[in-house]
C-alpha cells in the first residue's frame, strides 16, 4: 500500500509544474525600494563564519556581509572608514589612532566600542588561535583603547601595509567571545556581527540565508534577504541560472560570449557585467633549475609567447595583458612599462646567445648535448590548461619541447611548496596594498613560503624593504614603479594575462553600477534593489 502511495507521489511530481512566469517587465524602469530576495550559489560550503579562522573564499564571501572592519575601500579603491570615522597617523609614522563612529551596535543590540577592536587584535595575535593572518598584527607592539571611541596601535617601525591590514581584520564582539575557545566555539555557526546582514539560517549542505540587520552600522540594505545555495557542480549552477532559480553567477568566457548571447530567452532576463579582479595568471620559472637561472632563456620564452593569442583563445578576448604585478587602473602600475611583444626571432636570437643551437635542424634546440625541454606543472584549472597548450605550441615553434602535467590541487600545492617543479602556471590573487614582500623577497624561499620560484635580486630586496617603511603614497609609488621595472627586466615570471570577472545577474536586480568602478560591481551591493513586481513570487516575505 505504501508503495502505491509513493508511486502516486512520483506520478504527481512528474506532472507538469507551472513554468515560471516570464511576463515580467524586465526592461521597465523602477524606483528604488526595500524588500525582496537575492539568490546566489556557491560551489563549496563555508567551513565556519569566523573570518580569521575560516580563510577560504566560501567563508569570507558570507562573512563579509556579516562583519565590519575598521577600514574599507571605496569605489575607487581608496581607503575610507568602515567602523572608524577617521584615523590619524603620528609624525614618526609609528602610531595609528582610529576614531570610531559613535552609537555603533552589534546585531544583538549591545554597543560596539574600541574594546571590541582591542579584543579582536588580542585574538588574532594569540598563539592559540589557528589563524593564517597573524603576522601583520604581531608587528603591533602595543594596542590600547583609551576610551570607547578610540583605538590606538603602535608599531616598532613604520609599516606601510598596516592600513590595508586593518581593512582586512573583521572586528569580533568581545561580549560574546570572551572566555571561549575561538577555534571550536559555536559562534562560527551562529555569528553575530555589525554589518548589513545577519545569519538567519544555515541548512547544512543546502543553503545559507542572510537577512537584513536593522541595527547595521551603516544603515539598512535594500534587499531583505540573501540566500546562498550550495551547488557544487558549475554546470548545474548554470542550468539553475537558466531555470531562474538563482540570480547571480560568475560565468566563464564561453558562457559569457557564446552561450548567453545565443539564447534569446537568456538575453532577455540576464544582464552581463565585466569587472577587473585583483589577480593575474603567470608562468613561473624555478630559478634554481637550469636553464632558468639564465635571464636570456627566461626573456626568450617571454618573447616567444603570444600573449594576445592567449587572451583571445583562452579568455575569448575578455582580459588584458599586464606588465606589472598590479591591477590595471591603480596608481601602482608603472605606465611606462609594456609587456614583452610576441617576437619569435628575438627569442631565437637570445637562446642562441645563451648557447642553445639546433645542430641537426630537427627542430629542437640543444646545448651541451642536452635538448631544451621542460615540464609545465599545473592544477586542473581549464584556463591554465588551455594556456599551457597554446604556450606549448608556440615554444615548439622555436625549438623548445614542453610537456604538460596536471595535478589535483592538494598534490599540486605539495610540489609547489617544496619547489619540486621546472615551470608552473599559476595565478596570484592579491591584496590592494602594493607590498609583495612575501612573494619576491629572497628571504621568503623556505619550504611552504611564497617565494617558491627562488627569486633573488638584492636591488629588489631593498626596494621591497623600503616600500614597507614608506607611508607617503607618492613616494611609495615611485618605489614600486622601480620594483616593477626591475621585475619586468629580470622576467622571473612571464605575465600571461589578467582576466575579467564575468558576473551574470538577473535583470530583476537593479541599482548596479555599470560600467564597473575599480572596486568592482559589488561595492554598492547594499544599494541594489529588487522592484516589487519583479520579485520572486514563490517566496513568502
Amino acid at each position, binding site marked *: 500500500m505504501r508503495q502505491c502511495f509513493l508511486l502516486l507521489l512520483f506520478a504527481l511530481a512528474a506532472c507538469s509544474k507551472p513554468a515560471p512566469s516570464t511576463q515580467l517587465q524586465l526592461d521597465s524602469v523602477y524606483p528604488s525600494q526595500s524588500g525582496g530576495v537575492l539568490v546566489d550559489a556557491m560551489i563549496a560550503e563555508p567551513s565556519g563564519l569566523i573570518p580569521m579562522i575560516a580563510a577560504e573564499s566560501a567563508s569570507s564571501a558570507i562573512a563579509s556581509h556579516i562583519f565590519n572592519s575598521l577600514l574599507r575601500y571605496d569605489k575607487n579603491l581608496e581607503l575610507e572608514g568602515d567602523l572608524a570615522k577617521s584615523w590619524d597617523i603620528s609624525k614618526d609614522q609609528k602610531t595609528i589612532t582610529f576614531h570610531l563612529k559613535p552609537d555603533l551596535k552589534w546585531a544583538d543590540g549591545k554597543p560596539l566600542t574600541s574594546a571590541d577592536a582591542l579584543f579582536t587584535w588580542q585574538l588574532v595575535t594569540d598563539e592559540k588561535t589557528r589563524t593564517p593572518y597573524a603576522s601583520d598584527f604581531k608587528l603591533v607592539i602595543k594596542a590600547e583603547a583609551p576610551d570607547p571611541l578610540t583605538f590606538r596601535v603602535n608599531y616598532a617601525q613604520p609599516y606601510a601595509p598596516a592600513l590595508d591590514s586593518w581593512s582586512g581584520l573583521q572586528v569580533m564582539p568581545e561580549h560574546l567571545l570572551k572566555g571561549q575557545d575561538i577555534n571550536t566555539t559555536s559562534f562560527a555557526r551562529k555569528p553575530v556581527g555589525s554589518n548589513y546582514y545577519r545569519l538567519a539560517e544555515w541548512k547544512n549542505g543546502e543553503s545559507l540565508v542572510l537577512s537584513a540587520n536593522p541595527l547595521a552600522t551603516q544603515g539598512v540594505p535594500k534587499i531583505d534577504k540573501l540566500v546562498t545555495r550550495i551547488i557544487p557542480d558549475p554546470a548545474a549552477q548554470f542550468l539553475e541560472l537558466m531555470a531562474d532559480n538563482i540570480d547571480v553567477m560568475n560565468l566563464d568566457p*564561453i558562457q559569457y560570449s557564446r552561450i548567453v548571447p545565443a539564447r534569446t530567452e537568456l538575453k532577455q532576463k540576464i544582464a552581463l557585467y565585466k569587472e577587473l579582479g585583483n589577480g593575474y595568471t603567470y608562468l613561473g620559472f624555478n630559478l634554481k633549475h637550469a636553464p632558468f637561472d639564465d635571464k636570456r632563456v627566461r626573456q626568450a620564452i617571454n618573447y616567444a609567447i603570444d600573449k594576445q*593569442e592567449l587572451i583571445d*583563445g*583562452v579568455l575569448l578576448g575578455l582580459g588584458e595583458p599586464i606588465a606589472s604585478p598590479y591591477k590595471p587602473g591603480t596608481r601602482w602600475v608603472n605606465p611606462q612599462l609594456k609587456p614583452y611583444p610576441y617576437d619569435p626571432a628575438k627569442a631565437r636570437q637570445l637562446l642562441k646567445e645563451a648557447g642553445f643551437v639546433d645542430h641537426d635542424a630537427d627542430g629542437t634546440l640543444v646545448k651541451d648535448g642536452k635538448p631544451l625541454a621542460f615540464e609545465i606543472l599545473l592544477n586542473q584549472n581549464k584556463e591554465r590548461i588551455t594556456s599551457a*597548450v597554446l604556450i606549448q605550441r608556440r615554444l615548439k615553434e622555436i625549438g623548445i619541447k614542453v610537456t604538460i602535467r*596536471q595535478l589535483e590541487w592538494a598534490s599540486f600545492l605539495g610540489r609547489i611548496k617544496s619547489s619540486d617543479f621546472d615551470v608552473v602556471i599559476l595565478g596570484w590573487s592579491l591584496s590592494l596594498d602594493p607590498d609583495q614582500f612575501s612573494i619576491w623577497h629572497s628571504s621568503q624561499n623556505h619550504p611552504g613560503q611564497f617565494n617558491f620560484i627562488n627569486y633573488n635580486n638584492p636591488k629588489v630586496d631593498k626596494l621591497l624593504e623600503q616600500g614597507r617603511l614608506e607611508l607617503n603614497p607618492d613616494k611609495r609609488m615611485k618605489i614600486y614603479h622601480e620594483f616593477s621595472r626591475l621585475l619586468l627586466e629580470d622576467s622571473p615570471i612571464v605575465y600571461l594575462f589578467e582576466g575579467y570577472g564575468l558576473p551574470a545577474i538577473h535583470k530583476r536586480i537593479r541599482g548596479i553600477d555599470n560600467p564597473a568602478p575599480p572596486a568592482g560591481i559589488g561595492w554598492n551591493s547594499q544599494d541594489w534593489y529588487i522592484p516589487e513586481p519583479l520579485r520572486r513570487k514563490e517566496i513568502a516575505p
Partner: protein
Amino acid sequence: MKRVLANPLACWGLGITVITLLLALFAPAIAPFDPDAIDVKQILLSPSASHWMGTDGLGRDVFSRMLFGARISLMVGFVAVGIATVIGVLLGAISGYYRGWVDIFIMRLVDVMLSIPTFFLILAVIAFLTPSIWNIMIVIGLTSWMGVTRLVRAEFLSLREREFVLSTKALGAGDLRLIFWHLLPNSLTPIIVSTVLGIASAVLVESGLSFLGLGVQPPQASWGNILTDGKEYIQFAWWLSLFPGLAILFTVLGYNLLGEGLRDALDPRTTN
C-alpha cells in the same frame, strides 16, 4: 564455438565488440584530425561535413577524440580486468585447492573488500595518488578480483572431488600440475564470462572517474572527460554530451551481451 554463434546475445555482443576494437585499433588511420590539435577559432562548432561530431571547447575535433578515447577506454578495461583476473584466479585456486586456514583467510579478505563501497575506495586512492592511466588500471584491477576468486574457488571445490582429479593425484601428480593443467582448464567458462563482463564494468568505472575529473587527464581524450566538458555546455553543445555517452553505452552493451551470451552458450546445464 557453434553454440556461441547460435546464441543471439553472443552474436550481437561479438559484433559490437569487434567493431569497437577495430575502430580503436585503427584510430590513427581513421581519425580525420589530430585529436590534440587546438584551434581557438573553431570552438564549439556543431556537427558538420568536416567535423562529423562537432568540436569541443578548444576547437578539437570530437570524432577524432572519440576514436582515441576508445583506445583509452578499452585499454583500461583490458588491463584492469587482466590484473583482476590474474589475482582472482590465483587466490581462488589456492583457496579452493588447499582449503583450511588459507581458504578461510582469503574468503574473509574477499568479504572485507566486498564490504567497502568500491567506488569510494577507488576515488580515494586515485585522488591521493596522481590520476594517471596506470594508476586507474591498477586500482580498478585491485578492487574487482573478488568475483573471480569466488567463482574459481567454487569450481575448484566441486572439481577436486571428481574422479579424474582423484585418479591423477593417485598417479602422483604434483599440486601445481594439478592446478594448472587439470583444474584450471576445466574452470575456464566462468573465468571467461567474468572477464568479459568485467571489461564492461571497468569501462563504466573509468568513464565515471574521468567524468569526475579523477580519471584520464586532459589533454588525453577519454569518453568520460569529453563528457565533463559536455556537461559545462550542455544547453549549447549537445553533441559533446550525446556522442560520448552513446559510445560508452554501445561499447559496454557489446561486452555485456557477449558475456551473457557466452554464459548461456557455454553453460552445460542449458544443453539439456
